[in-house]
């Protein structure tokens, strides 16, 4: 089995992976980072969103071996003891109910704010087209992202 080496949440990691292993399986099963969820098998739901070299991607639609040498950030990599501002905003504004979609929502939201530090409600709703939530009706998620963007702009950006 090939060995895959990448940086995950700032730490160099390597692990054996059959070539057909998806990145999301590698993160969850090999590295034990189960914060990245699998919600569908068609790459539609967005529960598995992580950052690959700084851009949001669905970790179910690429192989672990394709991330060789890349830098991956998962939901576990955001906090340094204290919640990252976007995470804190999701808690504060109750941007979740069951929480299954939340890691993907937060990772997408941070990519949005990195591209567009002051998103409008419309920008946020449009950006979330690849993240599906069946509990909240999205209202509190949108509120949380707006607040999270403001908190990140106010200096909490990481």
């Amino acid at each position, binding site marked *: 089995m*090939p060995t895959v080496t990448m940086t995950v949440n700032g730490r160099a990691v390597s692990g054996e992976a059959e*070539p*057909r292993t*998806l990145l999301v399986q590698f993160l969850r099963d090999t590295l034990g980072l189960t914060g990245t969820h699998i919600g569908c*098998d*068609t*790459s*539609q739901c*967005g529960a598995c*969103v992580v950052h*690959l070299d700084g*851009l*949001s*991607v*669905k970790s*179910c*639609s*690429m*192989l672990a*071996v*394709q991330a*060789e040498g890349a830098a991956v950030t998962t939901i576990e990599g955001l906090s340094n003891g204290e919640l990252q501002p976007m995470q804190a905003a999701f808690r504060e504004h109750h941007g979740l109910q069951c929480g299954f979609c939340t890691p993907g929502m937060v990772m*997408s939201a941070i*990519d*949005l704010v990195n591209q567009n530090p002051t998103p409008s409600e419309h920008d946020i709703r*449009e*950006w979330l*087209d*690849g*993240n599906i939530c069946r509990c909240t009706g999205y209202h509190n998620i949108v509120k949380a992202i707006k607040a999270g963007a403001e908190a990140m702009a106010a200096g909490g950006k990481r």
Partner: protein
Amino acid sequence: MFLRPRTLREAVEALAAPGVGILAGGTDFFPALGERKPAGAVLDLTAIPELRGIEIGPERIRIGAAASWTEVIRTPLPRAFDALKAAAREVGSVQIQNRATVAGNLCNASPAADGVPPLLALDAEIELLSVRGERRVPLGSFITGNRKTVRAPGEIVTAILVPRTIEGPSSFLKLGARRYLVISIAMVAAILEADTTGRVGQARVAVGSCSPVARRLAQLERDLVGAGLEEVGARVEPRHLDVLSPIDDLRGTAEYRRDAARTLVARALEAAAGGFLQ
């Protein structure tokens, strides 16, 4: 076996062996597998620098086979490419656009591929490479049917080439059962060029999802020449859509598709004409 070559030469040599599948952004490749594993060896094209990037030349624009939809959106391009950029924003979601390539969309050859109508309207050509050499095929003859292309098993699509033979505003409209993340029921790309008197000098119109392969509406394009910019939508007649052969399926009936396509064509032309005012 998983192969991730760093040069094009290694890639075409690897592909000369039988049964090797090509992987780019993987956004069609993985969902199509479901629970199965790939049947043979997989050749990943995403680590080959020669396939990256979008080059803007005076005569033509070259979209490398590894260029993603996000790169299309972020690269400043002439306004005839606005239709392609609008289509790029419709391909799945941001995360899909960050991985998925334009070339993969064309090679996958779905009748509902959003990249096909804008690139057909741009008269794009496909550049293919194998150990036997290079060839170019117009996009209109590259895709031959539902999920069928003329690509030979040993060939890699290396780039999409767009000649700069039209200059003017363009538009793309897509109809789906919902607003976002949806498979097209019908989509239209239109590009207009004005002549010196401010009337239509050249028009290009392509319709997707209404035939096994997206089609240009050649008769309409001819009939639009000389039209005033305010009357482009009104020039569309049902006979102009006779080249389409929409089907009945779970997303819509043939009749609905034909009617929707006609409306979309008129609106896309009006939107493109509106671009002259900006």
